[in-house]
Each structure stands twice: as structure tokens, then as C-alpha cells.
């Protein structure tokens, strides 16, 4: 029996502990993610979806419970040290890229995710063939902007870049937090389809938060519903196929 890629064991997170603003966000969450799983996650605003990702990526400490990665206890591992195994794309295009650095520079930084950064010349030009091929796959002209600082890119290009940065070095687990929500419908659909392509082509293990119920049904092989910090339902691939958006809406309330 191989270990699950990720295992959450009875996770509870509290913020502002010991003050009168104390709030329990995640409540007793347990979850196993196996290699190749592609889980879409939905839940109303404030149900704790992003917090779940914060806990997995180490941005936030758990108050109770354990987190295992490939069988190893990583509960107390810092965010910087977890980055070797996982990558994440945020909803806000500004969060995922270094604005004054060029597209190529950002990609190279991401290619070395979780590695020691040596004191040798970076030889950026050597990576251009790889970067051109990779950015072309996004079909949005990013391949012509490799030398542009990312702050001048469109939101769609910037978010596509964030996504490429998350997968350029294969992560054990990929976290997507409403990564197309800030984009217009057409750009969003293109990026979502390309996301799906890359995940299946690369046999990636992924968790994807979305607020679009259609997307939650269309993509992935599991569907998880979060409600007030608890896992309310998990649907498997077959059950997911039979669900409709209308039925899903009822589960959300």
C-alpha cells in the first residue's frame, strides 16, 4: 500500500486564539488525496476553502491535527520548505508573479522552486526554447512577452503565467484557488480548459477551488463541498456525472 500524497487528519484551525475575536475556521477536517486525484472544491463565501489551502501550503498553522505528505509528518514544516512538494495559484493575478521581473525571469524562478539557489550566472537565454514552447501552449501571446515585466501583462496573461509557474516543475500536489475568477468569461474558459489539459497530460494531483458549479462538475474526478469549515460531501466520479447544477445548488445551502 502506498501512502496518499496528502493526508489531513482531524484538522482544526482557530484564529485570534485567546481573544474575544477567536474564530474556528476549519473544523475537524480529514481528507486523503491519492496520486492522480483531481478534486474540485466548492463552498459558499467564507466556508474556509482558502483557509484549507493556507493550511496545506503552510501559510497558516493548524491548531489541532496532523498533515502528512507522502507519509511524512509536515505539520510543523515551514511554507518555504513545503514548496519543494507543492505549488499554488491564487485568485489575484498580482499575488503569483514578481511584477518588476520579466516573464522569463519569473519562469526561471519557478523552475527552481524549492531548490537551493546557487551563486552561478543564471544563463536565462538557455531556457528560452523551453519557455517559448511552454508559453505557446497557453494560446494568449505570452510567448512574445518573455522579456516584458509581468506588471505590463493583461490579467489573463498574468494568471496564465502564474499557472505555468505552478506546473513548470512538477509538484506533488497542485493547489488552484479560484485561479480564473478574476478574468472575463472568455479568458477564464480558455485558461480553465488549458488547466484541465495540463493536469491530465502531466498526471498531476490537484485540488481546485472554483465558484462556478458547471466547472466543478465538468472537471476533476472528485467533488468536495465545504460548508462552515466542515466537509459536507465528497462525490466520486460516477456520482459527479449524475449530478446537475440545480441539485448541486441545493447541497450548498
Amino acid at each position, binding site marked *: 500500500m502506498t501512502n496518499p500524497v496528502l493526508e489531513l487528519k482531524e484538522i482544526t484551525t482557530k484564529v485570534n486564539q485567546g481573544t474575544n475575536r477567536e474564530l474556528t475556521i476549519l473544523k475537524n477536517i480529514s481528507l486523503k488525496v491519492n496520486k492522480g486525484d483531481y478534486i474540485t472544491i466548492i463552498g459558499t463565501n467564507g466556508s474556509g476553502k482558502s483557509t484549507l489551502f493556507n493550511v496545506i*501550503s503552510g501559510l497558516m498553522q493548524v491548531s489541532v491535527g496532523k498533515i502528512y505528505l507522502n507519509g511524512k509528518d509536515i505539520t510543523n514544516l515551514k*511554507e*518555504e*520548505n513545503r*514548496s*519543494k512538494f507543492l*505549488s*499554488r495559484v491564487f485568485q489575484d493575478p498580482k*499575488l*503569483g*508573479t*514578481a*511584477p*518588476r*521581473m520579466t516573464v522569463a*525571469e519569473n519562469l*526561471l*524562478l*519557478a523552475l*527552481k*522552486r*524549492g*531548490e537551493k*539557489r*546557487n*551563486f*552561478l*550566472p*543564471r544563463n536565462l537565454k538557455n531556457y528560452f526554447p523551453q519557455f517559448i514552447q511552454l508559453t505557446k501552449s497557453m494560446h494568449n501571446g505570452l510567448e512574445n512577452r518573455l522579456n516584458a515585466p509581468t506588471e505590463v501583462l493583461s490579467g489573463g496573461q498574468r494568471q496564465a503565467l502564474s499557472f505555468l*509557474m505552478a506546473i513548470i516543475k512538477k509538484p506533488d500536489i497542485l493547489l488552484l484557488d479560484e485561479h480564473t475568477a478574476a478574468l472575463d468569461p472568455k479568458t477564464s474558459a480558455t485558461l480553465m480548459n488549458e488547466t484541465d489539459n495540463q493536469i491530465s497530460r502531466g498526471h498531476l494531483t490537484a485540488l481546485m477551488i472554483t465558484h462556478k458549479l458547471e466547472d466543478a462538475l465538468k472537471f476533476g474526478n472528485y467533488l468536495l463541498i465545504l460548508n462552515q469549515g466542515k466537509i459536507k460531501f465528497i462525490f466520486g466520479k460516477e456520482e459527479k456525472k449524475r449530478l446537475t447544477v440545480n441539485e448541486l445548488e441545493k447541497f450548498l445551502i
Partner: protein
Amino acid sequence: MNMIVSAIGQGLLWALLGLGLYLTFRILNFADMTVEGTFPLGAAVAVTSITQGVSPILATLFAGVIGIIAGLITGLLYTKGKIPSLLAGILVMTAIYSINLRIMSKSNISLFGKANLFVNKFLSNLPKYFDSVFIGLLFIIIFTLFISFSLNTNFGQAFIATGDNPQMAKSLGIKTDRMIILGLMISNGLVGICGALIAQNNGYADINMGIGTIVIALASIIIGEVIFKNLTLNQRLVAVTLGSIIYRLLLLLVLQLGFNTNDLNLISAIVLAICMMLPQLEKKFNLKKVLLKGVRKHD
């Protein structure tokens, strides 16, 4: 002519200060007040060492090392102690004032013409004021090359990313705290060396010689940026030196206009304020259009 050469020499010597602050202020987005302490600290250490018989080169090196230590302390206060950046710098700057008095044991000590970096056979054969041009060039070239090389390594890119988007940097496994500490150390090391050079050039160290250094450093950086736009990183590093020289020439001009040296800090602050407001003013008064109109042929 002599005065212009002297101003250029001063610009080159002071450029090290601008280069140091560039690392923190521009790359790490960290307004580091420590430099107001590190600069006179470097001066005090160098002059005191030399009067104790230490060789000028070693004394200058000491100044760099002590600057590095000051940067380390500010870095630790900020990253581990979670003290806001501005306050961390001010705390260390204030503490250094007392330490400087301890080192010098009075508020001003002179080299009394003792051996220093500016006193040697080769330099004394140069025309007047060319000694500071030579030493200034030597140091600024060495350190600009060093920083330019470093920033273009994988490590340097991680350093730049730390300043540009710390959240992203962390998520890529970059140890941002370490980067910030290291940046502050190198920056203050350069500022310490700069203080040592200026003190040796002036022939004395003074407890108050740090006042206004941050403004001078920012002026070099921002004058460079205002004049030369759309530069690559390497060009930006060089622009700091050019900015520093232009700043000295501006001061020379102002003194020629009849202001006296007591007004220098006031003038420095005004020059910096104007440079920093320039992009705003440009927008507001359409300066560019008006200026261009003034030089264009009209029909």
C-alpha cells in the same frame, strides 16, 4: 575646473552609499534608516583604527565589517523581532550614536595627516583632487561589478524576487528572512566603507557626519532614475553613481549661487523632494509638453 573635478571625486566616493541603499530601498523595498548610523560608524572605526596604527586598507575593511554587523542587527530586529522596518533602522541608528562616542571617546577626531588611503606615492603624483576620483572610481567599479554579477546569479534573482513579491518568493521556497538580513548586511557594509573613505578624504571623523546621509543616498538613486529612464538592472546600478555625481555638481552650483555650507542639508532635502515629486509634477503641469514646446520650432 578644480572644483568640478573635486565634485566628481566626491560624487564617486559617495556613490558607494547610494549603491548600498539601492539594494535595500529599491530592490528590497526597505527604507533602511540604519545607514545614518552606519556611515559615521564606518568613519569612526576607520579613523580610530588608523590613529592606533592599523593600516588604512585594514581600517577600511574594519569599517565594512562593522557596517555588516549593524545591518545584521537591523535585519534580525525586523525579521525575527517583527519590529517595523523604519523603527528597526531608527533603533539601531540611535544605538550606534552612543557606540560611536565610545569608539571615538569624543565627538570629533582628526587623522592629523596620518597615513590613509589618500596618502601614497602614486596618488600624490596625480593632479589636485584626482586622488578622490581615482579611489572613488576604484571602489565603485569593484562593488558595482560585484553587485551586478551577484544579482544575475540564481541567488541574486531570488534576492530580487524577495523584494518584488515576498509572498510569491516564499511560495517558491526562497528564504525571504535570510535574503532581507543578507541585503541589509551587504548594504550597510558598503555604507560603512563609504563612511571610512569620506573620513579619510576629509581627514577626520565627526559624530554628526551621518545626519542627512539617507537623503543623499536617495538623491543619488532618484536623480539617476529621473534622468535616465527605462534602464536595465545593470544600467540602473551605474545610474546611481551618475546620480551621485550630478548631485554633487548641483550642490556646487548652489554654493556658487551664494548659499553657505550650513544650508547643505536643507538644500539636499529640497533637491530630493523636487526629484521625487517630478513624476507627479510632470503629470500635473504637463511639464514635458511645455518643455518640449520651448525647444521646438514653431510655425
